[in-house]
């Protein structure tokens, strides 16, 4: 019936009505896309090559000067380094712990929904509010963590968020706490897609220990999920902003300066929009590089078509 209504022969030339409908239905999204996404993005790229500041009457072209300045800007170098350290800590830890939690939850029947909810809770909690809770928890003098440390005999516990030695570590811990549950949920979805029969086959084939079965079945079949989780965690942690803005404002002494916070400060506090746009471009380049790496890895291996 359907084939009679819409003959396949017409595929190459869509009926006029259908083409018109297609255009009409994509038009609102197209306009919004153009005005709110494409043009501003191109404008940001353009701004990066100017020294524009809010209120200036015209754009002043300065070529690559912003990027040259970046190379000699100590603050930017620190921000980049801190971002790399932060990402390098949060990504493996939140993925490892997320996978561990998913495997433990999946391994039994008791308490599944409960623990899933517990680990997922930080994802749906207002980050700013929870950052305040962490600030109290990690407070050098009145915080419960240091109270606990003093109780077990640590005489001068670290100052956590207020010391330049530990601030990045503390932020990373909060970052892990925030994204562990998200990764766990993705891993749980990946695990549930592995056919049960494969585990049965592995047992019959002689995989006696749980570790053998993990290596033979779970880890390889989780490959696509893991790759996706790695990419998305990298991208999410490169974007770290909320906790820094709320808790440290990049301090103490720039020790927690990160890429997006520097961009925010240059653009919206110092109103140096050109320089800020240049930093945005670096940020965009990092994100694109990560996505490119993911596509590369996807093509090379984990595809079991």
């Amino acid at each position, binding site marked *: 019936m359907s084939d009679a209504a819409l003959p396949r022969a017409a595929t190459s030339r869509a009926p006029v009505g259908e083409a018109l409908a297609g255009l009409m239905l994509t038009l609102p999204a197209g306009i919004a896309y153009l005005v709110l996404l494409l043009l*501003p993005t191109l404008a940001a790229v353009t701004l990066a090559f100017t020294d524009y500041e809010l209120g200036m009457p015209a754009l002043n072209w300065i070529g690559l000067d912003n990027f040259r300045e970046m190379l000699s800007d100590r603050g930017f170098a620190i921000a980049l380094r801190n971002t790399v350290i932060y990402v390098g800590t949060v990504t493996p830890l939140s993925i490892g712990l997320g996978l561990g939690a998913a495997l433990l939850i999946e391994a*039994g029947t008791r308490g599944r929904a409960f623990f*899933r909810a517990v680990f997922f809770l*930080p994802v749906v909690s*207002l980050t700013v*509010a929870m950052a305040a*809770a962490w600030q109290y928890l990690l407070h050098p003098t009145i915080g419960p963590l240091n*109270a606990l440390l003093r109780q077990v005999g640590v005489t001068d516990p670290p100052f956590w968020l207020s010391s330049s030695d530990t601030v990045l570590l503390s932020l990373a811990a909060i970052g892990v706490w925030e994204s562990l549950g998200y990764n766990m949920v993705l891993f749980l979805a990946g695990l549930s897609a592995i056919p049960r029969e494969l585990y049965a086959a592995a047992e019959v084939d002689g995989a006696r220990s749980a570790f053998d079965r993990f290596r033979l079945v779970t880890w390889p079949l989780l490959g696509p999920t893991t790759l996706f989780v790695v990419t998305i965690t990298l991208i999410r942690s490169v974007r770290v902003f909320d906790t820094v803005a709320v808790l440290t404002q990049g301090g103490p002494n720039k020790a927690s300066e990160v890429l997006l916070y520097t*961009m925010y400060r240059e653009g919206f506090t110092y109103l140096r929009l050109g320089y800020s746009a240049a930093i945005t471009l670096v940020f965009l380049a990092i994100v694109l590089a990560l996505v490119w790496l993911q596509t590369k890895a996807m093509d090379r291996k984990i595809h079991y078509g």
Partner: protein
Amino acid sequence: MAERRIAFEAARLGLLGFFGLVVLAPYIWMVAASMKPLDELFRASLSLWPERFHAIENYGRVFAEVPVFHYLWNGLVVCGGILVFQLMFAVPAGYALAKLRFPGREWVFGAVMLGLLVPPHVPALPLYIAFSKAGILNTYAALILPATISVFAIFLFRQFFRALPDELVHAARLDGMSEAGIVWRVVLPNAWPAATAFAIFSVVAHWNDLFWPLIVIEGPARATPALGVLYFRSDEAGDDFAVLMAAAVIMTLPLVLAFLFAQRRFVEGIATTGLK
């Protein structure tokens, strides 16, 4: 075999319990601190239960000094407004990309894929300039507009609609429905799982967002809950952690409650929007 299983289950629950407690620690201490008087906090004792019950004073101060419901209302308006626009733009576009043949379809889809690569922080600067020139900073519009176009939503709905049988659309056409009618009366009701999943994803993301509100909003009139906590923290509360914790509890509660009521939907929503 049975003993081994019991031992394993005990180890499993023990490990999960331990890590669960670590994850819950900030919540536990936040709630505990919100019920203590300040001097008790300063003694930094490890007891969770307050010696002097001070919850009424703490929460009272929050409600007295912070327009809590106003912030929550702002959050609701912003998240609701964003979601409505996102669906209005993305559902028809997703349907057209999935089921209709029209010139330039490949280009539109290519643009969507390209848009997926751009984080929302990139267009933020020019949008700020434009909004400032247009004089709409400090308005709901400034908060809502940039998020109204979600290429991710278009992509998600396209993938979902493609899986719907063509016969459904053809039958509706034979019944004399217009394409717009098909979108809202046939396709969307069948895309309910995708729509709820996306709604949850969108609300969680924008309820928690701080970056954009921080840029376009000043003062409490249009502040979202995230901004509200930030203001309260730096202005009124200062170092009064007890009251700050009370405020944090109040602001965290709505979304957490929603999550606890519809746990399965939340988790599935995040998992499906994450993996597609």
